[in-house]
C-alpha cells in the first residue's frame, strides 16, 4: 500500500525543489555555457572561444597558484584539526569534575562567524601591535624588543596564519564529533581490553580507532570539503598575500569582470566536489535506512 499519495509527495517536494533548481542547478548549467565564451569587459558582448578558458586555467598561474594554495591549506588545516580534535576528545571522554563545563566552553567558538575569527586573528598576527609577536618576544623566541615577524606580509607565513585561524575555528567541531563517536563505543569491549591489560596505544590503534573509523572518515570528509571552499577567513585575513580557489573565482568576476574565465574555474571546482562527493558516498557513507 502506498502510504502517501504520489500527488501529495510531489506537492510537498516541489516548493523546495524549485528554489534549489533556480539557485543551485540552473547556475551550474548557465556557467557550463558561459565557460565557452569570452565576455567583453565593457560591452559584455559574448564571443565563442571554445576551450580557451579551460586551457588557460590549467596552464596559467592565475588558477594553478590558488589551486596549490588550496591544497596546502586543506592538507595542513584538516590534518592538524583531526589530531588536535582527537586528542581533546580522548581527554574529555574521561569524566572528571568540571569536564562538562570544559566541554561546553570549548564548543563556544563553534558558532562564531568565520569572518569574526579571521578579523580577530588578523589583529593577533599584526606585526607591530599583535599579541602573537609579543608572546614570542616574552618567551625569548624573538630576541630584541624591536624584532618582529611580519606574519601577514609574507606569502608563506600568511598561509600559516590563515591555517591557524581555521584550526582554531573548527577543532571544536572535530572534538565534538569524535567525542560522540568515542562515547558510542561498547563499554564491554573497553572493559575486556582493560582486563587483558592492553596498553594505551594498543587500546587506541586496535580498539578505539577501528571502532569509530567510519565516524573519523566522515568527519574528515566534511572538513575536507569545508576547508576547500573556505572564503571568509582568507578574504579578510590574508587576501593581499594568499589566494585560494574560492577567492580567485570571486575576484575574477567582481574585480576583473571576466565572467567566462570565472565560470570555467568555477565549473572545474564544482566537478571536483561532485567527484569527491561520489567517492565519499561509495566508500564511506552507509545510509542507516533505505539504500539497499
Amino acid at each position, binding site marked *: 500500500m502506498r*502510504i*502517501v499519495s504520489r500527488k501529495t*509527495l510531489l506537492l*510537498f*517536494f516541489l*516548493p*523546495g525543489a524549485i*528554489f*534549489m533548481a*533556480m*539557485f*543551485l542547478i*540552473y*547556475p*551550474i548549467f548557465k*556557467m557550463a555555457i558561459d565557460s565557452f565564451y569570452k565576455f567583453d569587459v565593457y560591452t559584455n558582448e559574448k564571443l565563442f572561444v571554445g576551450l580557451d578558458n579551460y586551457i588557460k586555467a590549467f596552464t596559467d598561474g592565475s588558477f594553478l597558484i590558488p589551486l596549490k594554495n588550496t591544497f596546502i591549506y586543506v592538507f595542513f588545516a584538516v590534518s592538524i584539526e583531526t589530531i588536535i580534535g582527537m586528542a581533546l576528545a580522548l*581527554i*574529555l571522554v574521561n569524566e*572528571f569534575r568540571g569536564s562538562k563545563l570544559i566541554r*561546553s566552553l*570549548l*564548543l*563556544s*567558538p563553534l*558558532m*562564531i*562567524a*568565520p*569572518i*569574526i575569527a579571521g*578579523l*580577530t586573528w588578523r*589583529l593577533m598576527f599584526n606585526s*607591530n*601591535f599583535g599579541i602573537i*609577536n*609579543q608572546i614570542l618576544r616574552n618567551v625569548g623566541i624573538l630576541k630584541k624588543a624591536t624584532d618582529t615577524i611580519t606574519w601577514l606580509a609574507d606569502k608563506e607565513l600568511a598561509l600559516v596564519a590563515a591555517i591557524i585561524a581555521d584550526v*582554531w575555528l573548527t577543532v571544536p567541531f572535530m572534538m*565534538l564529533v569524535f567525542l560522540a563517536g568515542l562515547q558510542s563505543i561498547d563499554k564491554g569491549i573497553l572493559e575486556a581490553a582493560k582486563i587483558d591489560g592492553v596498553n594505551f596505544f594498543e587500546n587506541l590503534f586496535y580498539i578505539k580507532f577501528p571502532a569509530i573509523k567510519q565516524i573519523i572518515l566522515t568527519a574528515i570528509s*566534511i572538513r575536507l570539503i569545508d576547508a576547500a*571552499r573556505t*572564503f*571568509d577567513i582568507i*578574504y*579578510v585575513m590574508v587576501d593581499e598575500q594568499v589566494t585560494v580557489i*574560492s*577567492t580567485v*573565482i570571486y575576484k575574477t*568576476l567582481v574585480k576583473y569582470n571576466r*565572467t567566462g574565465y570565472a565560470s570555467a*574555474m*568555477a565549473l572545474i*571546482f*564544482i566537478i571536483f566536489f561532485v567527484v569527491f*562527493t561520489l567517492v565519499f558516498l561509495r566508500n564511506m557513507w552507509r*545510509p*542507516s535506512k*533505505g*539504500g*539497499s
Partner: protein
Amino acid sequence: MTKNKLTKNLIIILATFLLLVWLFPYLYLVSSAFKPSQEVFSTPVKFFPTRLSLENFRNMFERMPFFKYLFNSISAAILSTILAVSLGSLSAYAIARTTGKRLSLFMLVLVLMMKMIPISSIAVPIYEIVMDLGIYDTKLALVIVYAAINIPFVIWMMISFYSNIPTSIDEAAAIDGASNLATFRKIIFPIVLPGIMSASIFTLFLSLNDFLIALLLTSVEAKTFTVAISEFVNSYNYDLGPMMAGAFLFSFPVIVISFMAQKYIVSGMTSGSIK
C-alpha cells in the same frame, strides 16, 4: 590507585590548559574591545586593558550605522530560516516517504551534492539572476538566496529524523481517515520538532554568519553586519579597536545563544556524521 589519581590530575591539567589556549583569541577580542582606543596600538602589547573604556564602541557607532546593519543581518537570517526550514522539511518528508527506493536515493544524492557545492563557485550566475530580477541590494535577495542554499542542508538533516519514524504511524493515521497534510501536521510534525529546532538554529547561524553572499549581493541599503565590519580592515589598520568592539557586540549574543541551545547544535553537528 595512586597511578590512576596521577593520570586523572594530569588529564585535568591538560584539559584546563587546552581550554585556556582555545579561549585565548576570543578573550583577547573582548579585552581589545574594552581597551582605551590608543592602547590597541601601544607596544609592548598587553593582554589586559589598563582601564576599561567604551571609546572603541563610541568610535564604532560613529563610523557605521551599527544597528541598521545588524537589523539587516538578523532579519534576513530569520526570514530565510523560516522559508528554508518550512520548504526543506516538507521536501525531506517527501523524499523520506517515497516508495521507490532508487528514486529516493537518487534525490538524496542530488541533495547531498547541492549541499556540497561551494557557494563561491556559483556566485557568478547567482549575481546575474539577482540582477535580472531587479532585487540587487535588497533584503529580499538575501532572504531568497540564503533560503535556497540552506534548503539542501535542511533536507539532509531532516531526512534522518523522518527515517526514524516508523511508517506504521503514517499508515495508522491514513487508515483512520486523516488526509496526508493532516497526518503531517498533527502526527509527524510534533515528533520531528526537535529536529526542526536543530535545523532552524543551524540555518539561522549559517545565514547570520554569511559573508560571501552579502558581499556579492548588497552594497548600501541591505548591507549586513559581516560585510560592514570587514570594511574596517580596508581602510588600513587604524580601526582595529572599533572593529573589535563591533565584533564583540555581534558575536557575544551568538555565543550566549549557542551556549543555551547547545543541545540542538550538538545534535545538528553530529547528525551528518554519526549514522
